[in-house]
């Protein structure tokens, strides 16, 4: 069930870093004349997990794609302090024609490790997500939850300094959601990477993120710590966190 | 009443299978598909004679099949005419057989090349689109919805497409034939200096009424093949996005193959006179 948000004392200190790992300034993006992002800015520091939350269609996934370079922004700047990125896709996006091992090996291709190193890293990360026995299976032979965990392993196998999660728990049953969230917290503790999680699920952003920004119609309308959300003065975040219809977010615009 | 589901071909995967076994497998699937398509044909004909026909839908489909294919069939016919004419007119002109060029080219185009290329082109365009459309409907449960409403998918979906195809595909075939001939005439003049009137004289001398009839028969048969095979394959899909692609590919492959086979059968059965 939804746990309490991470209490401030457990937040890792990133005072050693002098620069943010991810820096986004004035990002704008339109599709077919429709402006999806109207100028957003934020920073993510190493060891920190930022949640980007908001209703459907507010530009969350677009932001992730812009950061990874899958899309080009119309305006604005994105600065990344590292090229080692791992992305967990909403639909797992494992290559169906390759085994689990080969899928993970792909992520390591750039590093050109000797085979033994490669295998070691692969087995290590698969053990982390509890799928070491499935190393030579094909994705189609795995269940949805197993595929998701495999895509986790793939995202971290190259020891990334930036990890991005695109709706990791959307569509999962509550128990599986908790399991995935636990993985995310565990990974954060181990990797100390800079992380962004895009989600609209309360349990996910309150449990796994240190900080969150709420997007509404392409603009950042709130920024703060998850445990402050419910008691905030900001009507947007209160409405979103409470999941009510009363408030400035026009749910009726579906 | 939906007939039985057709099992998909075994995914070849990495099987070093016995080629004869897969031939047998392939034949078995082919026969089952043929049976399925034939059953659908009879069902469709039954509905045509008994039920009301949604002419608006027929016209809409005819538009999609006919007008939509005008350009690809035209271009294909034209360039096939160019190529055949180039080859044949240069060859025969060197032997001084200018007066025979028109006839040879026309016979080739009208009897064999025309029906095959038009048929295959339409199969690629229309057959695959129909299989894609119907299989997506299966995957998104629209077919189930129809069945719950006691609507037979064959009557609702296949019959209009069948009628539309009967109206448009023979016309497309003839149109392709004319374009091919026009292209052939042009090339014969341009590349081998054979004037159009000599070309056409030769055509008139060699081509007989039965050739046109054979051409028409082939195009009607092609139309039936395309519609019933594609629709059978489309409606027997199940699964996700992957199966839409699978069904579409199967439709293309099977309709093309059967068109080639049927073409030969009609050729073998038709009276092959010259004047």
């Amino acid at each position, binding site marked *: 069930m939804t746990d309490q948000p991470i209490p401030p004392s457990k937040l890792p200190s990133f005072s050693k870093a002098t620069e943010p790992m991810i820096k986004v300034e004035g990002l704008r993006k339109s599709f077919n004349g429709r402006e999806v992002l109207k100028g957003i800015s934020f920073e993510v520091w190493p060891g920190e997990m930022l949640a980007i939350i908001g209703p459907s269609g507010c530009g969350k996934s677009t932001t992730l794609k812009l950061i990874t*370079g899958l899309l080009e922004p119309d305006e604005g700047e994105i600065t990344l302090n590292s090229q080692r990125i791992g992305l967990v896709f909403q639909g797992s*996006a494992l290559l169906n024609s390759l085994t689990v091992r080969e899928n993970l090996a792909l992520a390591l291709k750039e590093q050109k490790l000797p085979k033994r190193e490669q295998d070691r890293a692969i087995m290590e990360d698969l053990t982390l997500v509890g799928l070491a026995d499935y190393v030579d299976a094909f994705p189609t032979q795995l269940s949805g939850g197993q595929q998701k965990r495999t895509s986790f392993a793939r995202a971290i196998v190259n020891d990334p300094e930036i990890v991005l999660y695109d709706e990791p728990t959307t569509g999962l049953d509550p128990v599986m959601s908790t399991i995935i969230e636990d993985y995310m917290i565990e990974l954060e503790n181990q990797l100390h990477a800079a992380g962004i999680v895009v989600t609209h699920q309360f349990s996910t952003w309150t449990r796994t993120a240190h900080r969150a920004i709420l997007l509404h119609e392409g603009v950042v309308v709130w920024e703060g710590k998850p445990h402050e959300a419910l008691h905030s003065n900001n009507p947007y975040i209160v409405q979103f966190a409470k999941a009510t219809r009363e408030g400035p977010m026009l749910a009726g615009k579906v | 009443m939906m007939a039985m589901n057709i099992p998909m071909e075994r995914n070849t995967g990495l099987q070093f299978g016995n080629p004869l076994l897969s031939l047998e497998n392939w034949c078995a699937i082919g026969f089952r598909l043929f049976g399925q398509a034939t059953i659908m044909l009879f069902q469709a004909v039954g509905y045509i004679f008994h039920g009301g026909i949604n002419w608006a839908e027929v016209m809409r489909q005819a538009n999609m099949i006919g007008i939509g294919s*005008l350009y690809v069939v035209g271009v294909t016919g034209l360039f096939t005419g160019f190529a055949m004419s180039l080859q044949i007119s240069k060859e025969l002109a060197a032997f001084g057989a200018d007066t025979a060029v028109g006839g040879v080219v026309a016979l080739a185009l009208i009897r064999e090349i025309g029906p095959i290329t038009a048929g295959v082109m339409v199969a690629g*365009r229309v057959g695959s689109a129909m299989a894609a459309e119907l299989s997506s409907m299966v995957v998104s449960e629209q077919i189930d919805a129809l069945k719950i409403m006691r609507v037979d998918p064959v009557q609702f979906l296949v019959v209009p497409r069948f009628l539309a195809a009967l109206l448009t595909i023979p016309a497309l075939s003839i149109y392709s034939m004319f374009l091919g001939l026009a292209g052939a005439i042009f090339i014969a003049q341009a590349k081998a200096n054979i004037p159009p009137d000599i070309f056409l004289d030769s055509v008139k001398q060699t081509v007989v009424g039965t050739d046109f009839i054979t051409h028409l028969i082939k195009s009607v048969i092609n139309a039936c093949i395309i519609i019933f095979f594609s629709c059978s394959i489309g409606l027997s899909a199940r699964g996700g996005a992957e199966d839409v692609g699978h069904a*579409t590919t199967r439709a293309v492959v099977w309709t093309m193959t059967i068109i080639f086979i049927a073409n030969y059968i009609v050729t073998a059965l038709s009276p092959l006179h010259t004047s």
Partner: protein
Amino acid sequence: MQASEVKHLAASPFLLVEDWVTLGVRLAGQVGIVIARTFYCLLRLQVDWQESIRQAYFIGVKSFLIVGVTSLFTGLAMSLQIAVQLVQFGGESAIGGVVSLALIRQIGPITAAIIVAGRVGSSIAAELTTMNISEQIDALKVMRIDPVRFLVVPRFVGAMAMMPVLSIYAMGIGIFAGMVIALIYADVSFGVFLDSAKAMVIDQDFFVHFLKAFINAAIVIFYSCTIGLNTKGGAADVGYAVTRSVVWSMTVMFIVNYIVTDLTYEGPR
């Protein structure tokens, strides 16, 4: 490109031409980019040979039966037509040559083009589109792996390797069909058939045949890969991509077939 873009019903046929041509040019541009990137990888020998062999095997296995059946029936039909004509004029002894020429020069390449577009092109388009809409292509990009190098190059190399084999196989079956018809219908022995064939078919015919085979295979591979990699959407769009790939590759192949014929054929020797 979205499915909705092309589904106009004809308001005016002339408007449709313009759309069609624009689409064709845009697609050709996209294909050009893929071709360029493929050759860039080839020139730098960045080829996954193991994957290429796998693809070659798939292409061969998938096409084996259909090429056989189609060549057989095309060969039967063409040679029947030709045999009938020649028998009328008492020219049976030339059956071998005429059939062989027809098959090797035009019918063979055209038929092969159709089959490859239908069998190989459609399955590649389906496969790549499905990968695209399930974000697998995006996953490759995020891992800094070039989709062209990972997916297109092995298919291209595999197809190039397979084409000569399939061509020879198709030719063999077609000519064999011709021999059978000639024997049954015109009482022409295999020997006479082959003598005539040897007399009339020159080396250049084989050369052009293989050239066309390579070009056709390339067209199919590049068009179907490009369309697959550039189609976004849902399940329905997979089917749509297959249709596009089959239609466009066949159209381009027919046009190119004529151009190659024009450039290489100077007349009988």
